[in-house]
């Protein structure tokens, strides 16, 4: 008697068939994804493309000074260029480059200066643009108010939105729909517009700018 005969002729066959159906139906799906024990793991390393970005300054420092010891920020609304330009280099895979700013934190950890006037960010609460003085950054209607500041990255093309605390398309790549080609390097300068006044009396504030390669 073969297996098929056994299955068809006996009750045990029916019960066995039913048990098989039960087992198939009740096997946890997770087991099919390799979380079960008793197996031997084999790792095979495969070369894969790399998405990356590198940031360098002309001086080789990991940061740039805004204004300087000899010419510190004054109130209200001092314009300052950074001490150095920044070269942003996309890696071997084409993609978008985002840029994001951050609060300026005083050395005593007190009241931050917040970024304002950028897309989707906080509005600047200072005086309205009078059209005579140097304009607020990023087309903002107002200058930064107390404990607010503006920062933007510019390439030779000029006009760009002000930075916010959220990632946004790097303006230097706007002409290419924010897309950087493989290995593309662009030099950018950082422009700063200070607050109308500062609650915190600290002599130094620290902030950061982050560039991100995004798929």
């Amino acid at each position: 008697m073969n297996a098929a005969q056994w299955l068809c002729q006996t009750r045990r066959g029916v019960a066995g068939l039913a048990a098989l159906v039960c087992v198939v139906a009740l096997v946890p799906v997770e087991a099919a994804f390799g979380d079960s024990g008793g197996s031997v793991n084999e790792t095979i390393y495969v070369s894969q493309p790399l998405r990356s970005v590198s940031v360098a300054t002309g001086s080789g420092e990991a940061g740039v000074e805004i204004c300087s010891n000899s010419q510190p920020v004054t109130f209200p609304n001092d314009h300052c260029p950074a001490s150095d330009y920044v070269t942003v280099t996309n890696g071997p895979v084409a993609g978008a480059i985002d840029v994001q700013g951050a609060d300026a934190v005083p050395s005593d950890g007190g009241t931050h200066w917040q970024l304002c006037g950028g897309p989707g960010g906080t509005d600047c609460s200072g005086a309205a643009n009078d059209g005579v003085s140097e304009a607020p950054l990023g087309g903002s209607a107002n200058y930064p108010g107390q404990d607010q500041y503006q920062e933007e990255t510019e390439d030779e093309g000029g006009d760009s939105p002000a930075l916010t605390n959220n990632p946004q398309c790097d303006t230097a790549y706007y002409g290419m729909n924010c897309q950087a080609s493989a290995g593309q390097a662009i030099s950018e300068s950082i422009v700063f517009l200070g607050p109308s006044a500062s609650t915190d009396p600290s002599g130094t504030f620290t902030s950061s700018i982050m560039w991100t390669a995004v798929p």
Partner: protein
Amino acid sequence: MSRYVRNTRRWPRALIAVLLIGGAMLPASAEASIGAGVGASPIALAQPGHAGGTYSLPGLYVVNTGTVTTGYVVRVHRLSPGHQKVLPAAWVTIERNNFTLRPHRSMVVPLRLRLPAGATPGSYLSNLVASTAVPHHHGGTTLGAAAATKLELAIAGQGSSTPWLRIGLAVAALMVAAAIAAAVRRSGIRLRVERH
């Protein structure tokens, strides 16, 4: 002899020239940079996940593409556009984080996914972002680099994710098998399969 002396006197000049040219070229080639890189291939669940399930994800390959030793932080944050639902960061456990890499060194960061029991079926998208850790600076603006890759998954519909439905199907299959067996016994029909 005098010719030899003249030639050796030329050496310092040549050496100075080489050093000057080298020195002029050095700043460009020795420019320090910070960098971050990740594997560009999306990290995805091979099959649709099920609410309440826990899964191992492929690790995130992180590499220091800069020229200085740098600290890195990995986080889940949606940056890529798309119609998919935002994959909540709380579903992903980054099993190794806040690490330091020397230039051109890499690390594979293990990842684990835990889908809550009430997770809504559908397609989800987020990004795994490896950023240089921003050091506390004495003032000014600190620069950072980050790289992101896609994190994609689908959660299967309730039908296939509910264990009670599978249990019900199994019970129904049992009942059908029992009914067939009873019918065969009552009818007296005997099936015989022969192989020639």
